[in-house]
């Protein structure tokens, strides 16, 4: 059984943005700017259909798009839809073929919204899936890399319309290294159309129905706010997550290096966590959390920091001194926690000498 295509409304996108920002685990960029641009497209009568990946034809050609770079750079330069759309037409020119639809490279944060802008501009539908089920900082941290699908070709475009095509790469980590250099040169932000996929690959090697999932999370937050209930508790309950820590930001250290935003956030405990501390490292996204200097949670479990009152996600580029926040963990897609998956997205892939042990009991997964 596959779902019929459905027309995405602005309300759908607003809900989706809330959920995508939470699934972004601090990264993927704040979705607000893309929402503003979407409002302009929708006001002009443009829109986008969401299609079920399981309904794709095996040979349907699918574009995988997203922005790469440091979220801090995007807060100033923003991510214009026409730039992301250009990566797709460039790829079509290179391949000499037309795309059937666009899929999300990562559902998390602003990158979840970008395919909808490109879709509205180019008149292409968006597929209800992505290659991460969350957000990650590197190209080799995807389900396509885990499944050993080819990593090339790539197109990359910057705000000046400087363009690069990477026609071949030995593997995903080489593609990551090469594109990262260009991204840094472009000013730590670039629009990309990654290695194209066909329907057959998408069906077996992506995280399915993650757009719908983000929309559902967004609606949970909105419903809780309307009812004056606690939106964080509502998300934790509906997504089988765990509430880890309740505190206030005591220090934020941030560095934009090698095209990433890296750093550490330190929280001091409030209420039931008074007297305790929580520290989270990030590389665009939150990667490892220590409670009172003990490792509490690591990638690929989702580490989300949310505004304690509004339930809005807080990004690594926007988190600031004095903010009152709640740390929550959400379960990761199963493929990321497989032995092969952990090689790509486990704590060691981020440079930590730690084994992954999910914070969620086996039975809950």
């Amino acid at each position, binding site marked *: 059984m596959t779902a019929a295509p459905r027309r995405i409304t602005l309300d759908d996108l607003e809900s989706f943005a809330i959920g995508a920002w939470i699934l972004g685990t601090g990264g993927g960029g704040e979705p*607000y*700017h893309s929402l*503003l*641009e979407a409002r*302009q497209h929708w006001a002009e009568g443009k829109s986008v259909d969401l299609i079920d990946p399981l309904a794709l034809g095996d040979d349907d050609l699918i574009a995988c798009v997203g922005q790469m770079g*440091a979220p*801090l*750079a995007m*807060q*100033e*330069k*923003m991510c*214009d*839809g*026409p730039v992301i759309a250009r990566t797709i037409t460039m790829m079509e020119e290179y391949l000499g073929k037309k795309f059937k639809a666009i899929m999300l490279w990562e559902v998390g944060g602003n990158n979840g919204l970008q395919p909808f802008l490109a879709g509205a501009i180019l008149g292409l539908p968006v597929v209800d899936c992505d290659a991460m089920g969350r957000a990650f900082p590197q190209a080799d941290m995807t389900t396509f890399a885990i499944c050993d699908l080819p990593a090339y070709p790539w197109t990359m475009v910057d*705000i*000046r*319309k400087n363009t690069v095509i990477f026609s071949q790469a030995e593997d995903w980590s080489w593609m990551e290294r090469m594109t990262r250099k260009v991204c*840094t040169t472009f*000013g*730590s932000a670039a629009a990309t159309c990654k290695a194209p996929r066909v329907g057959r690959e998408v069906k077996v090697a992506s995280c399915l129905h993650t757009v719908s999932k983000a929309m559902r999370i967004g609606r949970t937050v909105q419903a809780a706010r309307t009812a*004056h209930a606690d939106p964080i508790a509502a998300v934790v309950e509906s997504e089988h997550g765990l509430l880890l820590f309740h505190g206030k930001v005591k*220090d*934020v*250290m*941030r*560095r*934009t*290096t090698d095209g990433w935003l890296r750093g550490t956030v330190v929280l001091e405990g409030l209420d039931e966590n008074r007297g305790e501390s929580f520290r989270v490292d990030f590389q665009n996204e939150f990667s490892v959390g220590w409670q009172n200097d003990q490792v509490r949670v690591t990638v690929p479990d989702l580490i989300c920091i949310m*505004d*304690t*009152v*509004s339930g*809005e996600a*807080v990004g690594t*580029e*926007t988190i*600031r*001194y*004095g*903010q*009152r*926040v709640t740390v929550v963990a959400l379960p990761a897609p199963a493929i990321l926690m497989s032995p092969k998956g952990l090689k790509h997205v486990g704590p060691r892939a981020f440079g930590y000498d730690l084994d992954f042990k999910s914070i969620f009991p086996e039975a809950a997964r």
Partner: protein
Amino acid sequence: MIRLGIDVGGTNTDAVLVDGNAVRHAVKTATTADVGGGIVAALKRLLAESAVDTGSIDAVMIGTTHFTNAVVQRCSVARVAAVRVGLPAAATLEPFVDWPPDLRAMVKGPTFMIRGGHEVDGMPIAPFDRTAMKEVARRIADAGVGSVGVCAVFSPLNFAAEQEAAEILEATVPGISVTRSHELGRIGLLARENVTLLNACLVALARRTAEGFVRALADSGIRAPLYITQNDGTVSLASQAARFPVHCFASGPTNSLRGAAFLSGLKDAMVVDVGGTTSDVGCLRHGFPREANNTVEVGGVRTAFRMPDLLSIGLGGGTLVDPADPRRIGPVSVGYQLTERALVFGGQETTLTDVAVAARLLELGDRDRVARLDKAFVTAALARSHTMLEESVDRMKTDAGDVPLIAVGGGCFLVPDKMAGVSTVVHVPHQGVANAVGAAIAQVSGEVDQIFQGLSREVALDKARALASDRAVKAGAAAPTLSVVEQEDIPLSYLPGNSLRVRVRVVGDIARTT
């Protein structure tokens, strides 16, 4: 130490005389259309009734909601030009893009985007387009706008483009007022630009208002320095505040929350400030206003201000009640025209003040004039206003248990003695003038915003904190009361030697001299 605190609200102008730790005298007068007239009237009464020697006054602190009200009520805001330097970045979202349409229609003047600005690593995005900027300046001169907001991409890291644009504007358009975004905000282009444009549309009003304050003080024979209170409960000199009116946006509620803490001695409580036009519900935690966490909207414009977390509803002493249906209350208020338009003053309109007088909660004006109000009508109107207050307090509560509620403001007679979720409703002396008290006890701050080179991050932060604390103490703060309220560091990778731009803001209570 003798300080005069003045609060200029939409309805009332209050003045208090605070001597050391005690409120010596307080008066409440009506705000006037020219603002200054109300201050002169309040000071005249305060000085006469308290018989204080004007020479003994150490400082005057004025808090005002004037600038917020201008934005919220869409009046006295100027049309401004906007210049964004950053193309080809950020091309699809123009300045004013997320403003509410009615405010945009009033404020948005000629809007330009030109090439220039910087990348995160300090490289130019594109060379600054001087030719285009000169043309922009000429067109702004032709358009006849008096104020312009300039915002360049990544100006918090490198403000050269904004500086250059401002110089061209000032050279081409005589007398133009230029607000530069790097003086007001941090990284995040749209929010910083919004703040810049809000500031630009208020500078003319701010200059007139500050001049009015200065004149009112001189006319009252007071020579003490004049300070204006800011969003975070600290003060700045009036001349500085006139350049940056956006820094005064939330000073009204901040002052009433801090005044409530001072008058009640409570550190953790809810506070409701019932004024003439609105009721603001806030929360005190450890003696300070609880801050709103994320983006704050002012009159519908998204900003990145640090402000107290507040819920405002249109319910106050001057709020209109529908004569045909007592459950239909507000949000329109007669404001400072209460003494002309309310029934008890011989007017024709039914306000909540009239309802309260009829219910004998308040002695004001001529009660005979409300004798014809039906008893059931009065009861129903009060019940409805109680429910509105109760719901607001409930929405702002973050504790499940019952908490004390401090009632302040000129309209606090509308707060019932018993409310759901509230342990006790606390009434305090001088509760009607809590925000003037909050202004009088405003804190002082010390700020550091500078580039440190060749130091580790820890050492740079320590140095910045020590420097800021030092500046706060020099500005009159008591050392034991200092606390860091803002701390932010941005690495500047385009400068050598591990360069770090550090901003630290430290605030403290004014030291009491004996």
